[in-house]
């Protein structure tokens, strides 16, 4: 089960993920991010505090936006990943390519630094 809440805060777009992302629902994650990109958001946060699982289908969704993020100068940070979910990013070395932060404070700092 995956639950996705999206909202537009004053200075950034926020997507809250709850539950599990796998091949059966990664398209929902994709649509949420795509919507945020189409709305011309330049600062995007993903709250993964309540994300309990992610398979390669979910990782692939994030990876598929790296090109757009760079072209459109979109800053993108995922925060709150639990140890196991974080570990999946680590196995593939994707934590080197996608910004992961422990909590929202650190994520916002990353979003607006320099």
């Amino acid at each position, binding site marked *: 089960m995956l639950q996705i809440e999206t909202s537009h805060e004053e200075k950034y777009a926020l997507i809250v993920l709850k539950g599990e992302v*796998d091949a059966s629902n990664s398209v929902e994650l994709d649509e949420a991010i795509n919507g945020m990109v189409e709305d011309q958001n330049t600062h995007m946060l993903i709250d993964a505090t309540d994300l309990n699982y992610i398979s*390669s289908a979910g990782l692939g969704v994030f990876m598929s936006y790296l*090109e*757009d993020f760079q072209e459109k100068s979109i800053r993108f940070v995922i925060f709150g990943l639990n140890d196991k979910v974080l570990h*999946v990013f680590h196995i593939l070395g994707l934590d080197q390519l996608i910004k992961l932060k422990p909590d929202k404070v650190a994520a916002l700092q990353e979003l607006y630094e320099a």
Partner: protein
Amino acid sequence: MKHRLTLYCDKSQLADLRNFLSGVLKDKPISDTTKFEVILAVEEVCANLIIHSHGCNSKDKITLQVQEIDDKLIFEIKDSGKSFNLLEYQAPLLGDVIREKRKGGLGIMLVKKIMDKIEFESNGKDNTCRLIKIMDSK
């Protein structure tokens, strides 16, 4: 002891697969992280079978059997679709994954990084993929 599960080829089965595997692995002498990893790898292979070999045709079935032999956990996944040998599959470059924006292409990489050994056999009709994790390896 052996544990068996039959999945029909629908992506909704993946959550059930995870539940099944959590139960099976519950008392195994491996860390929670290793359990998590192993569940992920088995799911990746099953998801590929469901999606790529069986086009999400829910009339098709795949079976999973989990066995503990000595220090090994063996996950045997059988199907009878067109055979796909993931040992022969060459993982894409990271740059390709990014460039093609293809929202996939990371599954087999994960399986290979997680499992200690992978075996594949096909008799032209039935395919068997065996994923092996050595229990004190990590």
